[in-house]
């Protein structure tokens, strides 16, 4: 357990699947040197295969007894998708627009497909996913090199690239498949919660760029942070697949707002909801029912009285309130100069003390 834990809340009612977060992350961290296939942040359509393909069926995480479960390492060609590019520069000279690799799979191959009978009861929603910076990380637990650590300062989970020998057990151990192997460096890399930005008081790039303002960032123990209020006060933000036993620290407001279903004659079925609650229970556990109830009642309250603190939070009026990084928390910890790109995540500027692993509670 780290001293404090940074967390992110994502409001799935407002995610429009525009992938701006994906691009913000990609251009910042993963557009070169063997990281081309990696999406530290991705947005996937649910129901769908996800990224990598069928990640929920690839094992990892812990069982109820707390034992690490075996997992499978996905393959770039079959499961992540080989990135391809087009010959844009040659099209002007009369060439046909062609991809440089035959596209057979990609991170969003089944985007917007969803499930159900169109137009009567079909549905889908988006799930943006980053590393969950778990309190009990499966990746850390499966590393035989002691190369993965959790920063005491904020609970961010990082890979010590110097210790990493590219064994890839961490990928098998992560139930979210959010650790990636860099074949060019033969080392593992993952979402770093943009800690060089965080240390400067800036939110992660994905959260900063989100056009729907669906992402809240803050410390879980900071009662004034909106993250704390959504997770602990209103209990409307829930972790994804908490049943995998890693205590993830990215929380989701479940999607409650969908159009109603149509009957056989094409008439609206009043009060119906296209997203089956069983699907949400699968993702977020039975707690999702309480969260939906709170969200619905607060929405009704807002409609009737014009007042609801929760609805005001979810409207996300200003970035300054959504991102509460406890200003100066990091700066108090030491001098704070920004290193050149790519050097800076080798070792955290403020990574003085690290918890290698804890024996549970």
């Amino acid at each position: 357990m780290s001293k404090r834990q940074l967390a992110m809340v994502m409001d799935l009612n407002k995610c429009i699947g525009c992938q701006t977060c994906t691009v913000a992350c990609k251009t910042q961290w993963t557009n070169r040197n063997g990281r081309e296939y990696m999406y530290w942040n991705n947005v996937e359509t649910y129901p769908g295969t996800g990224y990598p393909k069928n990640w929920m069926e690839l094992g990892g995480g812990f069982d109820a007894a707390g034992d690490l479960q075996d997992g499978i390492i996905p393959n770039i060609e079959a499961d992540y998708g080989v990135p391809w590019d087009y010959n844009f520069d040659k099209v002007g000279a009369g060439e046909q627009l062609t991809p440089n690799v035959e596209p057979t799979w990609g991170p969003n191959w089944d985007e917007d497909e969803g499930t159900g009978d169109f137009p009567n009861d079909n549905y889908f929603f988006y799930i943006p996913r980053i590393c969950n910076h778990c309190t009990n990380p499966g990746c850390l637990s499966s590393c035989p090199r002691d190369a993965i650590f959790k920063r005491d300062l904020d609970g961010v989970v990082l890979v010590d690239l110097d210790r990493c020998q590219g064994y890839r057990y961490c990928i098998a151990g992560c139930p979210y498949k959010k650790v990636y192997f860099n074949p060019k460096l033969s080392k593992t890399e993952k979402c770093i919660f943009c800690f060089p930005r965080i240390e400067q008081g800036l939110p992660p790039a994905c959260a900063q760029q989100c056009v729907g303002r669906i992402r809240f960032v803050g410390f879980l123990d900071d009662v004034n942070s909106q993250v704390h209020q959504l997770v602990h006060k209103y209990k409307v933000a829930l972790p994804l697949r908490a049943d995998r036993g890693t205590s993830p620290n990215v929380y989701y407001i479940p999607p409650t707002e969908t159009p109603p279903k149509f009957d056989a004659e094409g008439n609206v079925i009043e009060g119906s909801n296209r997203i089956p609650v069983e699907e949400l229970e699968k993702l977020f556990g039975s707690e999702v029912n309480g969260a939906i109830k709170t969200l619905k009642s607060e929405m009704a309250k807002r409609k009737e009285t014009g007042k609801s603190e929760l609805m005001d939070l979810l409207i996300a009026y200003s970035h300054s309130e959504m991102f509460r990084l406890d200003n100066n928390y990091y700066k108090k910890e030491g001098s704070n100069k920004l290193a050149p790109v790519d050097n800076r995540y080798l070792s955290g500027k403020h990574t003085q003390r690290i918890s290698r692993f804890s024996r549970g509670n």
Partner: protein
Amino acid sequence: MMSNSTKSIKKLVAVSLAASAICATSAFASPVIKAYQVNGDIKNIGVESSSWSKAKETEILAYPQTTIHLNDKKANELNDGNKAKKIKVKALTDGQNIAFKIEWADKTESIQSGNAIKNTEFADGFAVQFATKYDDPLKLPYIGMGSQDRPVMVYLQKAVAKLFEPNGNGEVTMQVNRANAPKFEKDLERFDIDVAHLARKSYQKAFVAEGFGSMTEIKDKSSDFLMDMKFKKKLFGGSNWEGSVVRPLNDTYVKIYNDPIPVAFAVWDGDKMNRDGLKHLSTWIIVEFDGVVSDDKLKKEFDKPLENANLKNGEELTKANCSSCHNYGAVHEAASAYMAPNLSNIGGYSTTPYLIESITQPHNVIVPGYNANAHTNFAWYYGDKESGMTSAMPAFDYLSEQEILDIVGYLKTLKAEVE
């Protein structure tokens, strides 16, 4: 208490030495590698050197590592039921350096290419391990990466293509965004020259280790060594890897004189997704210098014959005393597979003194660094390096010497068949 058990070990050794004196030939006798003297410098020797013809080879066995469970499902399936591998070893010395050449069968040449879309490639490889302290043959380091206060030095080479990284310098900081190539043509050219310079050799590294996860690369050039590996198709079918390592007889880490030394070998099969603990490893093997007659304690006491061990009784005693925590062979009686080290191949890669010490003084043979977070209910030891560590296993020092010998004799039979 401690002195008592030390005494009992000493007595044990005396007993078994007497036993070994009675039985000249023994089913438990370990092979001995001879290092042959050659004239001329072998500092830059590789697998192709003609000097190897001066050495006779010794066949040793490497057993599949099954003590620790690793969590890669596919790899575990591929390695389930692995048999022991034969490794042929030769050794040379020129008075300044010592060199080993090993040869083992492998059907496929698996090279980690560094291709940016190949993330499930694993490399074939081999390692040679030295004990940094070996004067007390009863207290050699744990065979897999050493143990507390008993460090090992490991030379590792993997069949990795020459790449920017991994390379000899472990340089990961210098990277260039090639997408910006038009802007930085000169810079890029310079970068490529640097890459070619840094990637001058394939993956060959020297490490020190003192327990799981503690393996740390020696980067300060304080270790002088050279490795080589080549894949060879044989004339009449089959294929082999040949690997060699040469190091000075004496360096900061290991001092080798004329006396016998313990060495261990490990090989990885990339085709079976081998890496890290998924490997075949030998027990400590004695290397002695050709023509040097020494009355060496190591050679005499090492892996003593256990001819007077009653294996049947040993099996019963193991069942009664060990099986409630340890799994071994086809026997799965422990509360959980994660409860304690699996003993299925313990006879293949453990020495007799190690097994005796493990039973009578488990606190002395703790291997630190086992990732306890993976199985929180089953700590293998308590405490840490600073405060001192206690094994979760109680000392079975109340067993009689004969009973311990019986158990050890039985444990020595626990190993996979030879391929």
